[in-house]
C-alpha cells in the first residue's frame, strides 16, 4: 500500500502544475466564442453551415455587408446598381489586401463566383446563386453580374459570399485552402485549427476597416449546452449562442455574464397535410389556428423571447404586411369551425416534430389542439437522416409537421414562402403538404421581377391568401439569445451573425 504514496504525490503535483494554467482567465486581448461544432471546412464556399459562416465572416469579406439595422452597407463593393432586370454593376474597393499581402482585384471576385457556379465543384452554396449566369470583369474596379432571369435576391445572397484570392487558392489547392491555409481580406487571419477543439485567429493589421479591437479570436467547439454555460460562468468562454429559455434567468443575474437577445429570422410553423382529412378542409385548418394560445406559450415556455406572427412572413423580412392580423386565441370558435368541417365530435390526428429544443412548445400545442377536439398524438423524432428522408424527402408527415425555418438568413418573403409552400418538383416541403389554389403563381410572379414595389404588393396578396387558407398553424418567431461575459461589450444581431469586429473589451471598472 505504501508504494502508492509516491505515485499519488506525482499525480497531485501534476494536477497542481497543470491546473492554474488552464483555469486562469483568458488574456484581455483574447475573445473566446463557444460554438456547438466546427464546420467541416474553413473554405467559405464549400459548406453551408451556420457555425462555419460565423467563423468565415470574421476572416473573409463579401461584396456587401449588413448593418445591425439590416441595411446593406458597402464592403468589398463600394457601390452597386441594377443596369437591367438581369444585369448588375458593382464597383470594387481599391487597395484591399488579402492576408497573404496580395491586392484584391476584380479577377478575384470573378474567380470566387466561378468556383461556386461550377457544378463540378459540388459547392453546397450552388443552389443559392445558380441564377448567376456570368460574372464579367469590366475594368480594374468594375464587374457586372449577369443573371439568367430576374433575381431579386441577388443582393441578399452577396452579404455572405466571401471573396477569395485566386492566386492563393490555385497555388495551395482546394483541400489545403479549406484546412490549413485559408486566406481572406477579413479582420482576422488564420493561425491554427485543431479540429473539434479550436480555431485560432489573429488580428490582421492591414485590414481595410482598421485593426479589430481584440487581437486574438478563438472559436471553441463545445457541443453540450450545459458545458457551454459552465464555461461562460467560469470565464473559459466569452460568448455563447442559443441560450435556452430555462437558462436565461440564471445568466441574467450572474456576476460574470449577461444576456443579449433580439428577434431573428426564424419562424416556427406547423405545416398541415392538406392532401388528406381533416386538414383538406379549410375550416379544420382555421380551427387549428384558433386553438393555439400563442402568447401563453411565448411567456411560459420561451421566457418571453418570441413574437407572435400572423403568417410565416416575418416583420424583419422584405414584403411583410403589418395589416394582416394574427389568428386570436378562440377555442370556442375553433370548436365551431371544426363542427363546420364535419367533425362535431372531434377527430384524431398525429403531428410530427424533430426539433428537440422546441419539445415543450410542441407538446403544449398538441394539448391545446386536443382541447378543441383535434385530438393530437405528438410524435417527437430524432432530427437525423430518417427525418430528412421520410418527412421532408418523401412527404410522409400525416397530418402535419412542426418545424422552424431560418430563411437561410435571407431577409425576403420569398425565402420562406417558396420552400414552405411552392409545389414544384424541385421544391422543399410545400410540394408534399400544401395545396392552395393560385399560390404557386403568385410566388413565381413575385420572384421574377426586381421591381420592389410590385413585389411588395404581391407579397401582401400572398399573406392575405395564406392567412385565409391557413396551410399552416401560424405561430411565432424566435429570438437569438447570446450569453456574454461582462468583460466583453457586444449585442446580438437580428441576422444571427457574430460580427466580432463590433465586439469591444468592456470599460475597466
Amino acid at each position, binding site marked *: 500500500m505504501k508504494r502508492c504514496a509516491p505515485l499519488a504525490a506525482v499525480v497531485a503535483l501534476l*494536477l497542481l502544475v*497543470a491546473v492554474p494554467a488552464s483555469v486562469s482567465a483568458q488574456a484581455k486581448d483574447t475573445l473566446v466564442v463557444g460554438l456547438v461544432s466546427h464546420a467541416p*471546412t474553413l473554405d467559405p464556399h464549400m459548406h453551408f453551415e451556420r457555425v462555419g459562416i460565423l467563423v468565415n465572416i470574421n476572416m473573409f469579406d463579401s461584396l456587401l455587408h449588413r448593418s445591425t439595422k439590416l441595411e446593406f452597407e458597402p464592403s468589398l463593393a463600394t457601390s452597386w446598381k441594377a443596369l437591367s432586370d438581369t444585369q448588375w454593376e458593382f464597383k470594387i474597393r481599391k487597395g484591399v489586401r488579402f492576408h497573404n499581402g496580395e491586392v484584391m482585384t476584380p479577377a478575384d471576385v470573378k474567380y470566387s463566383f466561378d468556383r461556386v457556379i461550377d457544378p463540378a465543384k459540388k459547392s453546397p452554396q450552388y*443552389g*443559392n446563386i445558380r441564377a448567376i449566369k456570368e460574372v464579367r470583369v469590366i475594368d480594374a474596379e468594375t464587374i457586372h453580374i449577369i443573371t439568367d432571369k430576374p433575381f431579386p435576391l441577388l443582393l441578399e445572397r452577396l452579404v455572405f459570399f466571401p471573396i477569395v484570392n485566386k492566386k492563393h487558392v490555385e497555388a495551395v489547392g482546394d483541400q489545403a485552402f479549406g484546412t490549413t491555409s485559408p486566406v481572406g481580406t477579413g479582420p482576422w487571419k488564420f493561425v491554427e485549427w485543431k*479540429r473539434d*477543439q479550436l480555431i485560432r485567429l489573429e488580428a490582421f493589421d492591414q485590414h481595410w476597416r482598421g485593426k479589430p479591437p481584440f487581437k486574438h479570436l478563438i472559436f471553441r467547439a*463545445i457541443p*453540450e449546452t450545459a458545458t457551454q454555460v459552465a464555461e461562460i460562468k467560469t470565464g473559459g468562454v466569452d460568448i455563447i449562442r442559443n441560450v435556452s429559455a430555462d437558462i436565461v434567468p440564471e445568466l441574467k443575474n450572474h456576476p460574470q455574464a449577461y444576456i443579449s437577445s433580439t428577434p431573428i429570422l426564424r419562424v416556427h410553423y406547423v405545416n398541415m397535410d392538406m392532401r388528406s382529412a381533416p386538414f383538406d378542409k379549410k375550416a379544420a385548418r382555421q380551427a387549428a389556428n384558433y386553438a393555439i394560445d400563442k402568447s401563453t406559450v411565448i411567456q411560459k415556455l420561451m421566457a418571453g423571447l418570441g413574437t407572435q406572427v400572423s403568417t410565416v412572413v416575418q416583420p424583419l423580412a422584405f414584403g411583410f404586411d403589418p395589416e394582416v392580423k394574427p389568428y386570436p386565441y378562440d377555442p370556442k370558435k375553433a370548436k365551431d369551425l371544426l363542427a363546420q368541417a364535419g367533425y362535431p365530435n372531434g377527430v384524431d390526428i398525429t403531428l410530427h416534430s424533430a426539433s428537440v429544443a422546441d419539445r415543450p412548445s410542441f407538446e403544449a400545442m398538441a394539448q391545446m389542439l386536443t382541447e378543441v377536439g383535434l385530438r393530437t398524438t405528438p410524435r417527437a423524432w430524432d432530427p437525423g437522416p430518417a427525418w430528412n428522408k421520410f418527412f421532408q424527402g418523401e412527404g410522409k408527415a400525416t397530418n402535419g409537421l412542426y418545424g422552424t425555418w431560418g430563411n437561410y438568413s435571407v431577409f425576403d418573403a420569398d425565402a420562406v414562402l417558396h420552400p414552405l409552400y411552392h409545389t414544384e418538383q424541385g421544391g422543399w416541403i410545400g410540394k408534399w403538404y400544401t395545396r392552395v389554389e393560385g399560390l404557386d403563381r403568385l410566388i413565381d410572379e413575385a420572384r421574377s421581377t426586381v421591381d420592389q414595389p410590385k413585389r411588395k404588393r404581391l407579397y401582401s396578396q400572398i399573406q392575405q391568401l395564406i392567412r385565409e387558407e391557413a396551410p399552416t398553424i401560424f405561430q411565432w418567431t424566435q429570438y437569438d439569445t447570446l450569453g456574454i461575459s461582462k468583460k466583453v461589450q457586444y449585442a446580438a444581431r437580428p441576422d444571427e451573425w457574430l460580427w466580432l469586429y463590433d465586439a469591444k473589451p468592456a470599460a475597466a471598472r
Partner: protein
Amino acid sequence: MLSLLTRRLIRLAVVLAGVSVVTFAILHVSGDPVSLMMPEAPESDRVVLRQSMGFNDPLPVQFARFVHNIARGDFGQSFFHREPALPLVLERMPTTLLLTVLAMALSLGLAVPIGILSAIRRNSAFDHSATLVVFLGTSMPVFWTGIMLILLFAVQLRWLPVSGWDSWAALVLPAATLATFSTPLLLRIVRSSMLEVINLDYVRTARAKGVSEWLVICRHALTNAALPLVTVAGLQFGLLLGGAVITETVFAVPGVGRLIVNAIRQLDFPIVQAGVFLLALIVVLVNFAVDVLYIYLNPQIRVR
C-alpha cells in the same frame, strides 16, 4: 494452441466483414446525402451529382466497389470535409483511445483493491459502503455524472477546467466520468470471484503453510479470480468506447465519437464507414488480446 489463435483470427475477420456489411446497408437505406450536400439546388442538378458519385448504380455494384476500395485502405472522400475519410478518423483516434484507456486504468485501479478489501472484510461497514457506491455508480447516466462533476469541480470549486483537451488537468473529469460507468461492474466481479476462491482448499492450504496473508491474496487467490475480471474488462472496453461518445460531447473532447455522430447526422457515408470499421477493429483486437491473456492465465485452455 496455435490452431486456437488461428480460429480466433478468422473470427476476427468475419466480425469485421459483418460490421462493414451492416454499416453499409444501414447507411444506404437511411437517406440521400445529395439532398443534404446541395440544399436549394434543383432536382436536375442533384441527379447529375448522384450519377457522378455512383449512387445510381444498383446496391450490390456499390457494395462491390466499396469492398474493392477498402481492401486498398481507401474509405473514400468525406462528402462534407472534402478530404479522405480515413485520415480524419485516424487523426482523432488517439484522443478517444487515451480517454478510454485512462478510464479503464482508473476503473481497474479502483475496482481491484476495493473489491479485494470488500471480499476479505465481507459484510463489514466498508463492504456495505462499497456496495452503496456501486449502486450509485451504475444508476447514474454518463452525461449526468459528467455535468455534475463539471458543476462541482469546475464551477464551484474551480479546481479543474470545464472542458477541452489542452492540458492534463482537462483529462481528469472526462476520464473520471467514464470510469464511474465501468468501475461498479468490475468491482462487483472482483468481489464475487474473490469470495468464490477465498475459501477453497488450495487457499486454505497456502494459509496453513504459513504464507503471509497478502501473498495468499495476491498470488493464490487473485490469479484465479482474475479470469472473470479479464473477460469482463475486455467487454467493458468496447462499452467504454461507446460511452466515450457521450463523454466527448459533454467535455468537448475532440474524439472519434463526436466525428461519427456528426457524420451520421449528415449522412457522410465514408466517415461513418471508416469510423465504425476502426472502432470494431479495436474492440475485436482487445477481445483477441483477452483470449491470449486467458491462455496465459489458465493453462487448462492450452491443453484443450
